[in-house]
């Protein structure tokens, strides 16, 4: 009778352990997906930062010009003459757009990093549970 009970207990504990390990695997997969997402966002952020810097340099150059200066815009293979005020407005608008995108990306990255930290905590707790489970099993 006692042996039957211990066999049942062992079977239950091993199935519990399997469940925990499966859960750990799923959580680890989720974490790796999150990390990939964060890396992708960082890459995009880098690209936008470069663009922002370039546009700010262009704006500085345009601000140095006199009103009668000739400004051209490269459209495909053709240089098209453009009004200085229009060029200025276009660059400012582009800077605004890129800045907004950067803010959005920052918020996204922050959110993803918070999720990543909570996932890491969950994984750590799961690992501890598995270890204590195995230790208990070893004693038994």
């Amino acid at each position, binding site marked *: 009778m006692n042996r039957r009970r211990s066999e049942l207990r062992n079977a239950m504990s091993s199935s519990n352990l399997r469940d925990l390990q499966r859960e750990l695997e799923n959580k680890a997969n989720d974490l790796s997906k999150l990390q990939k997402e964060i890396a992708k966002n960082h890459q995009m952020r880098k690209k936008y930062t470069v663009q922002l810097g370039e546009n700010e340099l*262009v704006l500085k150059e345009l601000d140095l010009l006199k009103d009668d200066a000739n400004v051209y815009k490269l459209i495909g293979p053709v240089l098209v003459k453009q009004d200085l005020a229009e060029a200025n407005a276009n660059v400012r608008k582009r800077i605004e757009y890129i800045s907004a995108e950067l803010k959005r990306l920052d918020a996204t990255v922050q959110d993803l990093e918070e999720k990543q930290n909570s996932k890491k905590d969950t994984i750590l707790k799961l690992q501890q549970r598995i270890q204590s489970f195995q230790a208990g099993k070893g004693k038994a």
Partner: protein
Amino acid sequence: MAASGSWKSGSGSSMGLERMSVEQLKAVKEQADLEVNLLQDSLSNIRTATTRLEIASSALNDLSLRPQGNHILVPLTASLYVPATLHDSQHVLVDVGTGYFIEKTMPEGKDYCDRKINLLKSNFDQLVEVASKKKNVADEAGVILQAKLKQLASSS
């Protein structure tokens, strides 16, 4: 005074490294090496850009000395040149980035090149400083790591 301050901060960081485990030290060294490599790439890019601007500046200088109507060869590709005559040697179109070109006089063009060169040089100097600090951290971590590994080997 400043020297003693920097020495203190340096010793503080090495004390922090001393307390780290072998795994942590390896991670710190890898990270520092990676950052040093990235900074070296940036430095080489800045060097290339500076060289290009210096070439542009000397080309402007050369062009300003040539009279209008002078015969020149214009490169269409790396191996195809067509003969032409110089229409205006006092005005140039400057590519300021993001597809915008500005018509400038020769002195303005030279001034633009000089400003850009100065900007790049100041960026270069800042990056060199950061890179040397990172390299020091990497070297320090490497030395401490080697010492710890030796210690582990001798104790086992």
